[in-house]
């Protein structure tokens, strides 16, 4: 729609060439207001900027954020947009020191935020020029920069105004580098050191001593002990503390602490094997304002643990994923805590109807409940949940296999505010779906491996849940075109659909889905009836498509790829394994400049030279999954060259697999579960 309007304007402009440009009459403010609203499709802004010179200039002036694809274009882009404050380089796999120097010289003081979390090949020098030239830099994301060393950290320390710094997985940075940052970046409010295995107590302690403004501290998986805790707990403004997987901290050291941290609001102590409720209660003593507590994969949930949480009057969210749970513990949680809004018991062993029912009846204000894989619960629990927690907005209950199909009717009747519902691998049937369709706010519905549902149930969803953005029908084998048609005609906002292994799906489903203009993720693995025609329809209709999975759609060939290459300029990830695409199709995909991720296994028509040409032509590739046979068929320097360009190869050595019957697959899964 927008595009067409724009085209008309464009034509008008051409016809009035001799006259004064009408767009000059628009004030800057109006153009800016228009630009503010153009944020659904990234291409819209670009089209808009091509209307005329003045609009082009205004658009250049207006743009504050930029997400470039390749580092080669950086000098030109940055020249065009002088007021960039946020630079997201997560689509550029390759950013070298020269690029960083170019950025720092072009953006200067306007740059406030830069994301280098997905980029490699930069080092100390580039960061130094960035830190010295861009004085107003506030956010720097260096996550995954596994090659960076202390010298680079010392360069970062030159950015004196830095407030947020992510260093996750910077494994080579040691205390020395962190020490430099602690001394240099006094204004730090957030620092994430997750997986920085070289950082010990000394570095963390220095951060806590020097950076008094810290609000958020992520120390997950650091080899730290209790030595750094006293100074951390003295941080006056600390709100968010994550210590996931800190095995060096134990109960004894925590009980030795005299006072907890008063300002703490969110605490993550997941996977801390050596901490029980004893140490925990010592740590959170005095933290009366604690709102969120995550104890996933930690100590068993017993009455003692619940008792230690008794004084936390502000506690709203408790996550106990993967913990051993006793019914008494859950009961005590119900009695001790005031009123929870969010509770996660995902994959907890020992959750029974008795425990869960007594818990949910005490917390009637619960908004989010996660009982994924609580395999022992039955209809009784669901009855209690639905009667007590009428305000529930999110319910995740994947694989609660003992819950009968009648129970889902209750959910639909009583929890009408649900926005997110995960019913993967459950016994729900069409009656259940009909009931659930009353949840008019539903935006995410997962019905994977629900073998009892059919088009009839799905039609109810399509009719009533107009806000649906996400629908998962993975291996719900009874679904056919009729169901999809109902969804496509009712849910115009659909962004993601997965209908893998719904073997009866044909092109007509895809043609109907092409009306969903916002669709960005489309997965239809193992739908043998889909042909290139359907893909062409999706390509033309869904311009925002970023992820496409058509593995094992044997009838899709090069004719499907050509429209994709032309229309799906936002496509970033494609899985083509077992399809009938050949060299020509793959090469045509190379014209999609965004394309980063490609899985091409078992393509019969693909020759080594065709693959080589496609790989070379696809300049933005970051990850390619290939069959190991190609490794020897293609020259080694080719791969070296592509790797230098920032592409990672994953070699697979799987045999060509015949398709399993979906029902037999489900039975197999059930056998595996003890």
């Amino acid at each position, binding site marked *: 729609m927008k595009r067409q309007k724009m085209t008309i304007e464009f034509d008008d402009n051409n016809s009035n060439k001799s006259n004064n440009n009408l767009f000059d009459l628009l004030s800057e403010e109006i153009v800016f207001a228009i630009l503010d609203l153009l944020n659904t499709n990234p291409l819209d802004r670009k*089209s808009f900027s091509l209307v005329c010179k003045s609009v082009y200039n205004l658009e250049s002036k207006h743009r504050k954020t930029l997400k470039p694809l390749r580092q*080669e274009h950086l000098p030109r882009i940055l020249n065009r947009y002088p007021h960039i404050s946020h630079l997201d380089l997560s689509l550029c796999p390759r950013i070298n020191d020269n690029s960083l120097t170019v950025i720092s010289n072009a953006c200067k003081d306007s740059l406030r935020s830069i994301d280098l979390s997905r980029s490699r090949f930069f080092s100390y020098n580039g960061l130094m020029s960035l830190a010295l030239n861009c004085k107003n830099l506030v956010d720097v994301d260096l996550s995954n920069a596994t090659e960076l060393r202390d010298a680079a950290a010392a360069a970062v320390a030159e950015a004196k105004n830095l407030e947020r710094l992510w260093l996750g997985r910077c494994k080579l940075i040691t205390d020395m580098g962190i020490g430099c940052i602690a001394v240099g970046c006094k204004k730090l409010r957030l620092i994430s050191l997750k997986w920085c295995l070289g950082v010990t107590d000394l570095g963390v302690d220095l951060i806590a001593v020097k950076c008094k403004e810290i609000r958020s501290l992520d120390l997950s998986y650091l080899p730290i002990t209790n030595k750094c805790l006293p100074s951390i707990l003295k941080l006056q403004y600390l709100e968010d503390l994550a210590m996931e997987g800190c095995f060096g901290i134990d109960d004894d050291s925590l009980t030795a602490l005299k006072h907890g941290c008063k300002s703490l609001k969110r605490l993550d102590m997941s996977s801390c094997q050596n901490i029980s409720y004893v140490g925990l209660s010592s740590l959170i003593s005095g933290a009366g304002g604690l709102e969120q507590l995550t104890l996933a994969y930690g100590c068993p949930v017993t009455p003692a643990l619940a008792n230690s949480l008794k004084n936390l009057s502000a506690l709203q969210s408790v996550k106990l994923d993967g913990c051993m749970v006793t019914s008494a513990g859950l009961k005590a949680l119900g009695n001790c805590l005031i009123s929870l809004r969010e509770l996660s018991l995902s994959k907890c062993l020992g959750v029974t109807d008795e425990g869960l029912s007594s818990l949910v009846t005490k917390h009637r204000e619960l908004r989010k409940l996660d009982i994924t894989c609580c395999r022992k619960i039955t209809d009784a629990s669901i009855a209690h949940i639905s009667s007590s927690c009428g305000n529930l907005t999110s319910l995740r209950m994947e694989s609660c296999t003992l819950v009968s199909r009648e129970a889902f009717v209750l959910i639909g009747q009583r929890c009408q505010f649900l926005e997110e519902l995960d019913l993967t691998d459950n016994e729900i049937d069409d009656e259940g779906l009909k009931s659930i369709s009353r949840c008019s706010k539903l935006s995410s519905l997962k019905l994977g491996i629900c073998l009892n549902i059919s088009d009839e149930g799905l039609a109810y969803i399509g009719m009533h849940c107009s806000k649906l953005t996400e629908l998962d029908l993975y291996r719900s084998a009874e679904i056919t075109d009729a169901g999809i048609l109902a969804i496509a005609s009712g849910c115009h906002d659909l962004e993601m659909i997965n209908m893998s292994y719904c073997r009866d799906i044909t092109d007509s489903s895809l043609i109907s889905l092409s009306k969903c203009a916002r669709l960005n993720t489309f997965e239809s693995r193992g739908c043998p009836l889909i042909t290139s025609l359907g893909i062409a329809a999706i390509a033309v209709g869904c311009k925002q498509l970023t992820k496409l999975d058509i593995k094992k759609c044997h009838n899709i060939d090069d004719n499907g790829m050509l429209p994709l290459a032309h229309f799906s300029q936002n496509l970033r990830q494609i899985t083509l394994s077992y399809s009938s695409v050949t060299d020509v199709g793959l090469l045509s995909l*190379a014209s999609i400049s965004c394309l980063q991720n490609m899985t091409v296994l078992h393509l019969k028509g693909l020759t080594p030279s065709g693959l080589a040409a496609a790989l070379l032509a696809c*300049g933005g590739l970051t990850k390619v999954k290939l069959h190991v046979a190609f490794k020897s068929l293609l020259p080694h320097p080719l791969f070296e060259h592509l790797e230098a360009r920032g592409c990672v190869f994953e070699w697979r050595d799987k045999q060509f697999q015949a398709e399993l019957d979906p029902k037999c697959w489900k039975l197999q899964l059930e056998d595996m579960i003890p």
Partner: protein
Amino acid sequence: MMDHMDTLCQETWAKSSSSGNELAKNIPTKKPSFTNYNLDSHQHQQKWEDTSIFGIRTDTPFQEFNPQSETQSLLPSNPNDHIKIVDRKNSQINETLQINKIPDWDPRAMLNNLSFLEQKIHQLQDLVHLIVGRRSQVPGQPEELVTQQQQLITADLTSIIGQLITTSGSLLPSVKHTLSATTPPLGQLGGILFPSGTGMNSRLQRQHSSGTKVSDQSNQMDVTGNYGTEQNYSIEEHEMKEEDDADEGENLPPGSYEILQLEKEEILAPHAHFCTICGKGFKRDANLRMHMRGHGDEYKTPAALAKPNKEASSEPVLIKRYSCPFAGCRRSKDHKKFQALKTILCVKNHYKRTHCDKSYTCSRCNTKKFSVIADLKTHEKHCGKDRWLCSCGTTFSRKDKLFGHIALFQGHTPAIPRDETKGLSSGPSDKGEENDVSNKVGSTNYSFGSSDATGSGAQNIMDVKVGVDDPASYFSPLNFDTCNFGGFHEYP
């Protein structure tokens, strides 16, 4: 009386570091004592508080004092003149200072001060009379009572003397109150003792001598003080432990040891023991003795093989001390502040460290040089291993110490070793490589340009887009067209 005077003297020295010149005036003396006041007395004063030096070097010859006693006799004995004398001395020290101060001189104030002084001197006189009286009256008093009284009296004495000093100090036209007010009495203090000593008995005579020694010792002490600073310098310079300085505090009486001096060649010779028959050299005497066995049966006797020192130990041996052959060295016996070296090893190490080139360079850091190989080995043990460096230049052998240091001080930051930054700065340059990319890509463009064309021409817009998506413009960064907005994307 003698004991009393002793304590008196010592206390006054210790407490006020000086004593009243008027004290001398009061005590009927033939020889006024401020004659001692000379340039040296300035130096005395600096070290005066350190009473521990008394008694050191009791064997110092008296001769050194003689010149001073000569000057003493030459100086005028009139106590009233003392200010002038001081003045004169000051003028000798610093003429300009005096010139500056002359206009400030107020005769009226001077008179007031003088009368005050007179009063105080009378008080002092009475006090001393009292002491003398006590002595004569109660000879049989218990020791404790006597000492108590002495302490009381000396306390009074000190306060009066203190007042005297300040007043007399203000009389001086010199600005340097601290200097002028305290130095003259100091010099005279030695002098006080002379008269009192001469008048009494032979024991006092000793007192006299010790008094002279005070000045003499302070001379000596000054010297050692200089040594101290010298030593500090040398430590800073060499940054190593000077083994040969370990005997600094040793105080052997002169003549109680013999001084040996090896020649430079001997010191630097790799071997110290040589076979008298074949001339082969050995580092150790024991090795030489083992070697000698080969030269005949006479060397195989237990006596010949035994450690030679053992036999000699029966008779008292003069302790051996060593001198450095380097002229002007403080370890040389010709140096007037000579400090002997204890052993031959000390001599060797001293000579190599101080007077030889540092020929051994550390192979790790390539900066540190040593002349003694043992020093190099000691250094190499620590060099490069866990050197934790702060931006202020301080190094630490332990990381936690460095971090404690950084936590303590503002603005200090860990210093990253230079080799790490070097390694990174020479990172892979990709200029050539990138050109390579575009070249290769350029060659592949043709192959799929044709297949591309089939689907074009759908809409007006598409025409534009095809132009935009022209692969040639995509993959050659040099040929970047303004219409080409495929280069970036934003996801709001």
